[in-house]
C-alpha cells in the first residue's frame, strides 16, 4: 500500500508530446480568433450572445463554472489547514495548481468578454467602486485572490525547482522560502476568505436576474448554494486529476487519502443537496420540481448526477478506482450543470430568445481550457506537484541524476545545520 509522503514530479516522460502540439495548435487558432474579436466586437459571427442573452459561454462557463472546478485550493485547503485534516496536505499542491490555472484562464476570459476592458482601471480606485454590485466584488476579490494568495501559494514548488536546478540562485530561493513560511498563515487566511466571498458573489450575480431565473434556482440563498457547490467541485477536480495521473503516468494512489477525499465529497454533496431541497421547500416551490417540464427534468438531472455519484462513492464499490473516477466525473458534471443553470439552462430571457454559442465563441472557450491543461501538463512534469512516496522520490532522483549530472535531489541538509 502506497503512502503519500511528498510531491514528486512526473519523470521519464517527454514534455513535448503529440498532445502538447495538438493543444498548441488549438491555442494558436483560438488566440487569432481572440484578436479578431477585439477588433470586430462581439458580433454575430463571433458570439451567439444577443441583448436578451447578454452573457455567453465565456462568462457563464469559463468563469462561473470552471472557477467552481478550480475551487480545490480553497475547499481542500480549508479542510487541511483550518480544520487540521492532515491527510489532505499531500494533495494540496494539485489543488493549488488547478485553482491557479482555472482562475487565471477565467480572468483572461472575463477580460476578453467585456466590451470596454480599458475602463477596468477604475478597479484600483476603491472610492470609484459601486459596493452594491456583485460583479464588482467578483472583479476585485477574484483578481486579488488570483494575483496574491493563490499566486504565492503556488510558489514553493517553483522555489524548489530553482534550488535543485539552479544552484547559483539557491540561497535567494531559500530566503524567499523561509520568508514565505513566516507569513504563510496570513496568506492562506486570505486564500480562503476571498474565494468564499467571490464564489458566493457568483451566485449573487444571478439574484439580480430576478424572475428570469427559474424559481427552482432563483433564491436569496443562491450565493450560499453556489459556494457550496464550488466546494465539492473542487474535491471532484482534485480527485480526477490524481486518478488521471494514475492512468496516464501510473502514479500510485494512496487509498487512505483517496478515502478521505471521497468522504468529504460525499458529505459536501449530501449536505448541499439537503440544503437545496430545504430551500426549495421553505420557499414553497417544491411542486415546480414536478410540474415544469424541461426545468423539472433539468433539476432532477442535476440532483441524480450529484446525489447518485455521492451515494456510489459512499459504498464499497466506490473504492474501486474506475468506479471512483466515474463517480467523481459524473458528480462534477452534475455540479457544473448546476452552476451553469441560473445563467443559461434555467434562464428564460424573453419569449423566443435563444442562445447557442457561435463556433468562434466555442473555440475561444476551449482555447482557454486548453491553456490551463497545457500549463498543468508542463507543471506536473517540471515541478513537484503530484503526490507520491519517498520511495518514488528516490527513484525519480536516481533517474534525474543519471541524465543531468551535477544535480542533487537527495541527502539534503539545510544551510544552518
Amino acid at each position, binding site marked *: 500500500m502506497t503512502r503519500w509522503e511528498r510531491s514528486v514530479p512526473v519523470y521519464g516522460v517527454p514534455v513535448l508530446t503529440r498532445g502538447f502540439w495538438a493543444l498548441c495548435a488549438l491555442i494558436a487558432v483560438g488566440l487569432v480568433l481572440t484578436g479578431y474579436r*477585439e477588433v470586430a*466586437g462581439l458580433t454575430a459571427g463571433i458570439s451567439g*450572445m444577443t441583448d436578451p442573452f447578454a452573457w455567453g459561454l465565456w462568462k457563464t462557463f469559463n468563469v462561473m463554472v470552471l472557477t467552481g472546478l478550480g475551487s480545490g485550493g480553497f475547499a481542500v485547503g480549508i479542510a487541511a489547514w483550518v480544520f487540521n485534516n492532515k491527510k489532505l496536505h499531500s494533495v494540496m499542491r494539485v489543488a493549488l495548481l488547478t485553482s491557479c490555472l482555472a482562475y487565471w484562464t477565467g480572468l483572461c476570459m472575463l477580460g476578453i468578454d467585456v466590451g470596454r476592458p480599458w475602463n477596468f482601471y477604475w478597479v484600483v480606485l476603491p472610492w470609484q467602486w459601486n459596493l452594491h454590485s*456583485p460583479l464588482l466584488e467578483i472583479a476585485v476579490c477574484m483578481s486579488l485572490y488570483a494575483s496574491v494568495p493563490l499566486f504565492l501559494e503556488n510558489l514553493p514548488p517553483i522555489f524548489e525547482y530553482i534550488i535543485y536546478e539552479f544552484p547559483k540562485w539557491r540561497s535567494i530561493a531559500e530566503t524567499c*522560502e523561509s520568508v514565505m513560511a513566516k507569513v504563510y498563515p496570513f496568506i492562506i487566511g486570505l486564500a480562503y476568505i476571498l474565494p468564499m466571498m467571490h464564489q458566493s458573489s457568483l451566485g449573487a450575480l444571478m439574484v439580480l436576474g430576478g424572475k428570469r431565473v427559474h424559481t427552482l434556482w432563483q433564491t436569496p440563498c443562491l450565493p450560499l448554494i453556489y459556494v457550496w457547490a464550488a*466546494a465539492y467541485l473542487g474535491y471532484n477536480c482534485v480527485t480526477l486529476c490524481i486518478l488521471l495521473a494514475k492512468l496516464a503516468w501510473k502514479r500510485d494512489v494512496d487509498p487512505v487519502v483517496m478515502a478521505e477525499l471521497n468522504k468529504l465529497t460525499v458529505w459536501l454533496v449530501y449536505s448541499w443537496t439537503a440544503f437545496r431541497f430545504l430551500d426549495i421547500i421553505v420557499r414553497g416551490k417544491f411542486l415546480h420540481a414536478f410540474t415544469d417540464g424541461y426545468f423539472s427534468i433539468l433539476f432532477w438531472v442535476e440532483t441524480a448526477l450529484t446525489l447518485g455519484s455521492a451515494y456510489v462513492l459512499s459504498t464499497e464499490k466506490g473504492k474501486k478506482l474506475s468506479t471512483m473516477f466515474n463517480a467523481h466525473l459524473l458528480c462534477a458534471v452534475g455540479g457544473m450543470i448546476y452552476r451553469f443553470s441560473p445563467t443559461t439552462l434555467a434562464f428564460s430571457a424573453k419569449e423566443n430568445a435563444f442562445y447557442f454559442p457561435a463556433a468562434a465563441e466555442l473555440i475561444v472557450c476551449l482555447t482557454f481550457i486548453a491553456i490551463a491543461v497545457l500549463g498543468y501538463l508542463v507543471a506536473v512534469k517540471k515541478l513537484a506537484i503530484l503526490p507520491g512516496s519517498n520511495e518514488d522520490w528516490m527513484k525519480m532522483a536516481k533517474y534525474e541524476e543519471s541524465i543531468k549530472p551535477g544535480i542533487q535531489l*537527495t541527502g539534503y541538509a539545510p544551510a544552518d545545520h
Partner: protein
Amino acid sequence: MAMTRREAFKTLAKGTLPVLAAGCVSTALPTAARAADDNELESNSKYRKVDEAHALGLLYDATKCVGCKSCMVKCSEYNELKPDTRVDGIHQAPPSLNYFTKNLIKLYRSDDGSDHSYFKQQCMHCIDPGCMNACMFGGLRKDEETGVVWWYGPKCVGCRYCQIACPFHIPAFQWDGFNPKIVKCELCRTPMQKDPSKKEPGCTKVCPTNAVIYGTRKDLLAEAKRRVAAAPGKYYQDKVYGEHDAGGTQVLYLSRVGYDKIGLPDVGEASIPSTLKYSHMAYKWMVLPLLLYGTMVALASKNFAHHSHHLVEEQKETGLRPQL
C-alpha cells in the same frame, strides 16, 4: 464505507462548516438581520431621495396610442441615431430595442385576433434601478435632481450585467465594433441639454394623440389616477403600472389589456436591488469577513506550526528536503 456516527459527524463538520461559514458571510443571517435593518433599502439606493416633485418621467396611455410610430422617428432624430430599417430597407421596424433604437412601438394581438393594443417600450427610469445596482463603477447613473437614468461611457467596462439586471430588458449593447456602447432612453437628456429650446423629449413632443406625455412623476401619477378614477374598469385592474412595480418607476403606464401582454411583466413590488439586501448586510463594515479571516489565520497558524515541526522531523529521518 463503514463509519460510526461520531466519525460521520466529524467529517460532516470538517467538510461542511467552512462552506457554511462562507454562507454566513455571503448570504445572510435572515431573521436577525432582517429585524436589525429594515430600511436598508434607503441606503441601497440613495437615489430614493430624488424628490418626487422633481423626478421626471413619462405617462404612456396605451388606449390613446394609434401606432403611428411618429415617436420612434422623432426619438431617432433627437438622439441622432440612424433609423433601423434593416427589416425591409424602408420601414423603421426593428423587432426589439437595440443599439439604434431607444424607443419602440409594438403591437399586441390576442391569439384569436379579436383584441389588440399598441404599446411603447423605452427605459422605465426606475426609482431604484436594477441596472445601476449591477454596474461596477457607475457606468449607469441617476441624475440627482431629475432621477433620469443615463449611461456614462468612461465608467462602463461593457460587462452587460445591466442587461441581466434590468427587469424590463431595456439596455441594449452595441454588438459590433471594438468600442461598444450601452444604448437606452435617457429621457432625451442630451438633446435637451444641447438645445435649450427643446423643452420636452422627442416622443412626447410629436405624439399626435398625447398618448405619451412628459412631466414630473408626481403630476403624471396624479393624472394617471384621475384617468383611472374617471373610467373605472377601463384600465386593466384599475392599476397604474409603475406606481409600485419594481419599487416604482418614473415612467408610468396605463393599458386596457393585461400589462404582462404589453411587455410589462409582473415583477413584484420590491425593487431589484432590494433582493440583494441580505447579502449586503453580511458585508456590513466588513465585520464578518474580518472575524472569519482572524479565526482562520489563528487556526491555520497553530496547525502550520505543528506541520512545520513534523516536516523537520521527517527530514531528519529521510534526508529529503521538506516541502511546504
